[in-house]
């Protein structure tokens, strides 16, 4: 730290460092629920998380301090890729797409117990390509159908992995 580059501390980075320190503290505190040593005197289950947690807390605090003292714009330590090459409009568009894609993944995971794994993922592909990416419907349908076909061939026909079928499971219907 002989000649710190004069720069403003970057908020997301400081926040992330804070989270790191908090994580260390949490694990360290949590480790007090476990034994430091076993009955036979060997190393207990609390040792590793407590020591590691404490170290992480210290390193985290060190990182926060480093950042607050003007930061260091060296490679590999923070936001190098800024958003400057995106216009505000683009940035908003990108953010919305990211949220949509993540939400779609979550929704897919939620409907898997109902529709089964393969069907849910196929519908997800269709939704992402046709609606989110606005590709032509024909192509999207084609890609989704291929996804279903290839997955079915490999996972069900070839490897016989028991994928969940949700409500389409014949076992559900045989009970009714």
């Amino acid at each position, binding site marked *: 730290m002989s000649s710190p580059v004069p720069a403003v501390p970057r908020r997301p980075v400081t926040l992330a460092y804070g989270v790191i320190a908090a994580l260390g503290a949490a694990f360290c505190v949590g480790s007090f629920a476990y034994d430091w040593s076993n009955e036979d005197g060997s190393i207990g289950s609390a040792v590793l998380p407590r020591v590691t947690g404490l170290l992480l807390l210290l390193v985290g605090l060190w990182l926060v301090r480093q950042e607050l003292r003007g930061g260091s714009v060296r490679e590999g330590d923070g936001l190098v890729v800024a958003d400057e090459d995106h216009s505000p409009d683009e940035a908003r568009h990108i953010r919305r797409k990211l949220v949509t894609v993540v939400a779609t993944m979550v929704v897919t995971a939620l409907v898997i117990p109902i529709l089964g794994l*393969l069907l849910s993922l196929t519908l997800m592909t269709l939704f992402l390509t046709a609606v989110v990416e606005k590709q032509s419907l024909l192509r999207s349908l084609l890609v989704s159908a291929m*996804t279903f076909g290839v997955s079915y061939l490999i996972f069900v026909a070839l*490897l016989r992995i028991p994928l969940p079928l949700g409500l389409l499971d014949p076992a559900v219907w045989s009970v009714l």
Partner: protein
Amino acid sequence: MIENLQIGFEAALSAENVLWCFVGVLLGTIIGILPGLGSATGVAILIPVTLTFSPLTALIMLAGIYHGAQFGATITAILIATPGEASSVISTLDGYQMARKGRAGPALAISALGAFVSAMVSLVALMAVAPFFAHLALDFGPPEMLAIMILGLCTIVVFSGRNLPLGLAMGLIGVLIACIGVDVGSGTARYTFGSVELFGGVPFVEVMIGLFAIGELLNQLHLGMAAPIKARFRDLLLTKQDLKRATAPTARGTVIGFLLGCLPGAGTTLASFMAYGAEKTFSRNRKKLGTGAIEGVVAPDAATNAASNANFIPTLALGVPGGATTAVLLGAFLVYGIQPGPLLFENQPELVWGLLVSFFIGNVLLLVLNLPLAPVFAQLLRIRYAFMYPLIIVTSLLGAYSVKNSMFSVWVVIIFGLVGYAMKRLNFPMAPLVLGLVIGPLFEKALVQTSVLAGDDGFAVLATPATLTILVLAATLVTSPLWRGRLRRRTPNAPEQGKAKDHAEKGSHE
């Protein structure tokens, strides 16, 4: 040995065996390509299919799956940064960067070639000195393993790049995540908060799929969709210079992989990391590592393959599993009515030597299969990203589910996908985190075992020649930034400049 080889060739070189070997490596490649599904699971689910075969044919096919999976896993790692197996995580670092620069073809080809060469070398070593290495490996008890794990943790320094505290923090987070679940020492359920799913710990493979595949995908979406990569035909082939640069790393990777693979339980994943760490320390091009250097692709691949072959040393010579997949294979021995154990070489020479010879055949088949396919696979990157990323999500979630047939895995992938995205945006290094995650449990196990063995003597048990050598090596590694920094000041480097421009497309794997 020549006589034994003859027995082996006579046994293995029937049309039927070669055919099933081919089926095995092909299936293995597919299983390897799929993220999540590893060779251990692949072999286990295909054991019932082989029940009607003769024992040798069945084992040849299963071993083919094992070898094929190693090859296949690298393909997805290079093309879409999705590790197909735990041991191919490290291939995502440089392999994926090569792919983004339009050099996916050479990356795939050199990885196949490096894997092939190291497989051949390690197989010869396996045949010639298996019993010797097996007994050497037995001398590696908990204290020696502890030293190796310390060495492993020290490579975090190498993986951290210039911001050492940050790399250290990532490594520590990895170790802490690995603490979740039932610990091997006392069987205490740690940080499970009443969730039974967490009893088994945070699943490693799923975390990798999330961090690397989904994290990178969201990052690409953030950057405004990766453009399809149209490589010229010339760029799809290996150049003479590529081959020259790959030679030394292949040799280093093979040696590291073979030695670590001999030790029961050290694992191929650790071998790949150590090989990459060695490149970061010793390679002439070490500064380019992480930006798509061929050394970073070929060394870990060579190590993985050497280790997976060396895994057979304790398996065949002693009857104890060298790794997860060989443990499943040992189970398969019993299914076919063969008793594995120290007398296997004596009692079943035809089977053992036939199997070993089939490894050669399998690796030749894999090379013949993979080299011509490398440019073809590279063409997959021409798919428009709007179609590409839904497919990546599908394979990631499907693969994650099939690891344990569990929805929990799917959620882990999604959650760690978000974590991975955040890390990419903040430019946090991922490799130390993975390293901590891999080594954490192994380190703790060795630590607890050593503490039992030590009893009242304290850690005096660590004072054996082997442990001391390894610990000195670790100390050299930790202090390497110091003496390397001095070297750097003497030789100013120009090529470092102008790298920031394409930084947008590369992760933070310095």
